[in-house]
């Protein structure tokens, strides 16, 4: 079974691949858009990464108010 901490570890790994080492140490409750300076196009890329890595489909609107890794993990957990 995939735990929340597994998901968070994977998220940090994916984000650091795309946005650099800074993402690897980011606190789960920090606004990653702000911390990593992600624009809307990069957010779309991240969504594609997530869908591929976790083998799920996540509608954009589920992520509309999600700005932290903890929030992302919660959305993914519902679909795993």
């Amino acid at each position: 079974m995939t735990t929340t901490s597994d998901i968070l570890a994977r998220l940090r790994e994916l984000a650091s691949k795309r946005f650099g080492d800074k993402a690897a140490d980011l606190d789960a409750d920090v606004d990653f858009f702000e911390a990593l300076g992600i624009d809307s196009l990069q957010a779309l890329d991240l969504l594609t990464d997530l869908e591929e890595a976790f083998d799920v489909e996540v509608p954009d609107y589920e992520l509309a108010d999600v700005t932290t890794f903890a929030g992302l993990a919660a959305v993914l957990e519902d679909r795993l």
Partner: protein
Amino acid sequence: MELAGEALSWTHRGDALEVALHRGPTNEIGTVMLRELEGLVRYLEDGAGGARALILHSTLASGFCAGADLRELQAGITERTDRRKAQVSAVAERLPSPVRGLATRAARRVGKHLVRREISQFIDRIHAVFDALDRAPLLTIAVVHGPVFGGGFELALTADLIVAEKSARFCFPELRLGIIPGFGGIPRLERELGNAMTRDLLLTGRSLGARRAAELGLVAQVVSRDKGLDSARRVAAQAARFDAEVVAQAKAFLKHVPRQRLDAEKRQFLRMVTEDRVEAALTDFVARTDVRPYLP
């Protein structure tokens, strides 16, 4: 023949005619793109220099195509509305006050009518181009990456095959602006996927990744980043092994143009596009400072 335009260029490579879109920020479809697409259609109608396949792709890192040029649309509406208001104000000042309000309201209706007529002409031209691409007698391949949104999605849907790089995301965000797709996207998506999926995408405005799009049958191949054009070239080379007339006949049999639904979509779009809420949504869109405000 080769062409280097402002919005697109084409060149022959092997048996394929390769059409590259390259108008920033993300190949928005406005009057320049439309004019050059019309040139492409004329070239296709003249035999496309003997090409056996057409490959449509974007050379911009930002994506395939983000849809209609909404900034140009908004500027056009504002310019015409302001001009009409100025004309009416000049006349209304000379009218007695009870009649002034009536004259202003009448002018607003006339202004809307003019905007609608102009958009209608643009939509007619777009439909003519997209219909021609849809039924072109050679194999057509759209190579997509990044945003394939709105009018860009509609353009890709005219192709016989879509080769998607992993980064591609398909989306119809039109409802956010108070409109439906107007370039023939709904009937063509229904043709490819059926009405249930079309409703999901339209009524939620969500985007669809390349892998899911392939599972649904919308996309023929999913390939790695920057590998789409190479894959499309191999598809084109394969198609060129078959007799051109046989390909044309097979395609005409396999791929129907949903004429009635296309006309119905056009009428519905034109009814919606001149509503006040669309003007307000477009104004809001243009005022936004995001790099790419059309993204979800």
